[in-house]
């Protein structure tokens, strides 16, 4: 069973030619999800998906396919709501809860004909960089099951890397799509803040969170992004622009395009030298294709992780206040008075990392500390945005490593939260500035994938996709399959 599921384009061809049906694709995806021992999925909805696949096959037979995604099986990170399905966010506190409503992105995917087969493992409430902070246990990296797949959207990255589904949705707050994409050797994109509706995405940090696609190719990621993007009146931070038409950007032509290389990201002490070498080789390949490069500077980069953890935890401490055991989810048993209900429900329901971030966020918002921490972080956020504005005056996209390293071993950082936070060093700046960024596979170090990160101007997803697609046309990293998927 080698790679039973191809990319969207291949599957679409097979579906159109009646070589395969959507029902068969859903069955194959579910069988494969079950056969793999990577803990990528937390829930499969095979029966419902099969019924939807039958409808999809019928539509196709009538010549009424809704979009290129018609009949394509996809997976959702367990923090993206779908009506009638759990959205446990890998937390004990949401045990048993089923969402009564669809996230906008899910409604749009379904309206495009895609079929959701299941929900994927993650760090609890998207807080983590390894998918180890999960009530379901850690997900494993298909390139080496002893290694973490990255996080927090680890399950979605694994599902795509291991060939269960051609595409999946994740969410990115400080790198939660791009870093696992890098660790698992797939494409992962965080769109411009406000490009994809957050309605129905369980909030971690509202001013940073974005839903985005995972796929093996840039082309497939583009199809998914086109389906889910665009203005949504249910999200007050949604940009009032229609979904961008992006297919035209995938021309393979990057001639004249300027790639900025920020010196702060290429400092020799900042990343594994072999990772840096792989990224430099990829950039050289793009130069071969006609792109120009120039060095740029993002001088406030050293402050990005600190800024990110202050902003994100402050917002999280408030966003997670709704988990109180009153309206949904799990309440501690045999509670005494009201205070006891709150304290025990939340202490039993949240894992250690979530508690740590709630405490940090509560602290930085509390009287006497707000200005020194939260307000300060918001001001530095402005400086980080300005860094990018200045850099983009001199270049069209910025290329960096996605992560300073390849996948680390499970358990290796569990006891050192700060060290875990620092693995986000290259990914936190883009969400702070609200700009789009993606990771595309660009090589291997010791058998583990390396990701090239591209960051672009706000709303200019097209340039990122153009460059990443051009790179994939000249490389075959994305065609390699992990041993666990063979």
């Amino acid at each position: 069973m080698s790679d039973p599921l191809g990319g969207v384009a291949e599957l679409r061809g097979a579906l159109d030619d009646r070589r395969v049906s959507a029902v068969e694709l859903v069955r194959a995806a579910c069988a494969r999800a079950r056969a793999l021992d990577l803990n990528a999925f937390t829930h499969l909805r095979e029966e419902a998906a099969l019924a939807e696949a039958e409808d999809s096959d019928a539509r196709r037979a009538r010549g009424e396919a809704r979009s290129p995604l018609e009949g394509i099986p996809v997976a959702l990170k367990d923090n993206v709501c779908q009506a009638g399905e759990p959205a446990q966010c890998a937390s004990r506190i949401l045990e048993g809860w089923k969402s009564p409503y669809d996230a906008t992105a899910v409604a749009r995917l379904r309206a495009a004909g895609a079929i959701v087969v299941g929900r994927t493992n993650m760090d609890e409430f998207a807080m983590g960089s390894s998918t180890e902070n999960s009530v379901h246990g850690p997900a494993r990296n298909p390139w080496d099951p002893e290694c973490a797949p990255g996080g927090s959207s680890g399950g979605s990255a694994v599902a795509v890397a291991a060939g269960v589904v051609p595409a999946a949705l994740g969410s990115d707050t400080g790198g939660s799509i791009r870093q696992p994409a890098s660790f698992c050797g797939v494409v992962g994109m965080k769109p411009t803040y406000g490009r994809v509706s957050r309605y129905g995405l369980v909030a971690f940090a509202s001013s940073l969170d974005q839903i985005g696609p995972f796929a093996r190719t840039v082309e497939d990621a583009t199809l998914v992004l086109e389906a889910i993007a665009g203005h949504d009146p249910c999200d007050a931070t949604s940009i009032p622009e229609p979904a961008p038409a992006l297919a035209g950007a995938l021309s393979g032509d990057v001639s004249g395009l300027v790639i900025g290389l920020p010196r702060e990201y290429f400092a020799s002490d900042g990343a594994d030298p072999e990772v840096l070498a792989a990224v430099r080789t990829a950039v050289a390949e793009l130069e071969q294709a006609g792109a120009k490069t120039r060095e740029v500077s993002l001088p406030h980069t050293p402050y990005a992780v600190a800024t990110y953890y202050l902003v994100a935890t402050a917002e999280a401490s408030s966003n997670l206040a709704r988990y109180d055991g009153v309206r949904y989810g799990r309440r501690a048993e045999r509670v005494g008075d009201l205070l006891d209900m709150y304290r025990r429900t939340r202490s039993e329901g949240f894992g250690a990392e979530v508690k740590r971030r709630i405490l940090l966020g509560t602290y930085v918002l509390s009287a006497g500390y707000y200005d020194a921490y939260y307000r300060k972080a918001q001001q530095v956020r402005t400086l980080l945005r300005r860094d990018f504005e200045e850099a983009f005056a001199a270049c069209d996209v910025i290329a960096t490593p996605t992560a300073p390293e390849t996948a680390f071993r499970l358990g290796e950082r569990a006891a050192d939260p700060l060290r875990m936070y620092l693995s986000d060093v290259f990914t936190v700046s883009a969400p702070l500035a609200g700009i789009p960024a993606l990771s595309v596979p660009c090589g291997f170090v010791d058998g583990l994938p390396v990701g090239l990160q591209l960051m672009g101007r706000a709303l200019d997803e097209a340039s990122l996709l153009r460059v990443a697609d051009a790179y994939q046309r000249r490389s075959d990293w994305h065609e390699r399959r992990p041993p666990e998927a063979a």
Partner: protein
Amino acid sequence: MSFEPVIGLEVHVHMKTASKMFCGCAVHYGGEPNHQVCPVCLALPGALPVPNREAIALAVRAGLAVGGEVHSRSVFARKNYFYPDLPKGYQISQFEEPVITGGGVEIEVDGEVRRIPLTRIHMEEDAGKSVHGEEEREDESHMDLNRAGTPLLEIVSEPELRSAAEASAYLRALRRILRYIDVSDADMEKGQLRCDVNLSLRPTGSDVLGTRTEVKNLNSFRYVEAAIEAEIQRQTGVLEEGGEIIQATMQFDPERRTTSVMRVKENADDYRYFPDPDLVPLALDAARIAEVRAALPELPAEKRARFEVEHGLSEYDARLLVATRPLADFFEAVTRAHGDAKTVANWIGRDVRGALKERERDLEETALTAPALSALLKLVDSGRVTPRSAREVLGVLMDEGGDPESLVGERGLEAVSDTGALEAAVDEVLAAHPDDVERFRAGEAKVLNFLMGQVMRRTGGKASPGLVREILARRLEG
């Protein structure tokens, strides 16, 4: 040492919108628990708020009506605390940058007019509430979120009120404005207007503020006044005994008319306000504000001034007639139909208001219409109905409605102007009261009124008073 109270009010009013502040659920009171809820006001994971355009227009209208400054930029902030009626674990409110600052409300107490300055007006959302179910056990509470998310205005006064009477006058004036501009029905009984009182004492003449307490959730005008009186008394007692006021939240016991400490405010009240990242700043451009201003109805003070000039009313009458917008509108409608503003003002100011008070009703709740009252007054003017009979007809018009002319006919209330019959009645009265006739002739002029009354009684109030007076005068002089 004598003390002077320093009082500020925080008033919460429900805005009159069809849907909630941040979601499309109906604003609807009562009913089964949790029938007006959705993912947003239930605070389901992933749900997001979007502000209600009308609520913002109403907030701006309120701000303009009190002469406040409407800010082109304001910010929704989260106020974080845990309570089972607060589904998100935070309330969306405004903190550092409210939509309105400044402005004031004019009050009159004991003939003295003062303007009470306002600190700010901001928008927020209401919480849900406990309901009492049949199955409820003693150690549990049942929560209903139908009210959660109802648009609220919080109106904060400066601590410029000096007595319970002033606080009450302020509250009434504020309510009248809010009703005039149709921002809120502001019915305290329905919880549409709630009031928290901040109160401290200071030595008379001093300008140093004392430690203040807060009396929460007063839901009637009487309670606001009584609670203020009680808290002044309590604080005075403490200070006179050399004690210290402790910053605390107080509760008012309406039966015993006392206040007591509900919760001591330590620094535990740490709401961790921060700008709501789900809601970017609210922008109001000058054109939008001008639009709201143009649609602003005439306010009580303006209307009163106009009534004095345009209709030649006394300040007293004008003030009575602008008490509510329906009453003022009614006055103008009757005047248009009838022609004489003073007559109309007299009738509405005295008889209509009296009859409403008797019935404990608002004008809108009666069947009385402007054309009917105008027609009735014309019957009085022409002498066809006596004022006394007209009052009887007014009652019928209020309770049942109808045409004054036919009502007068049906009830035989036509004024008696048959001179012969009236002369006979006068003669009978004079014969029955010889002493009074003597006293009148000895110079006691006011006895005439008594004799008039006797004649009116004998004719069932239907006698034309002018004619009776004429006949009486003639007979007594003779």
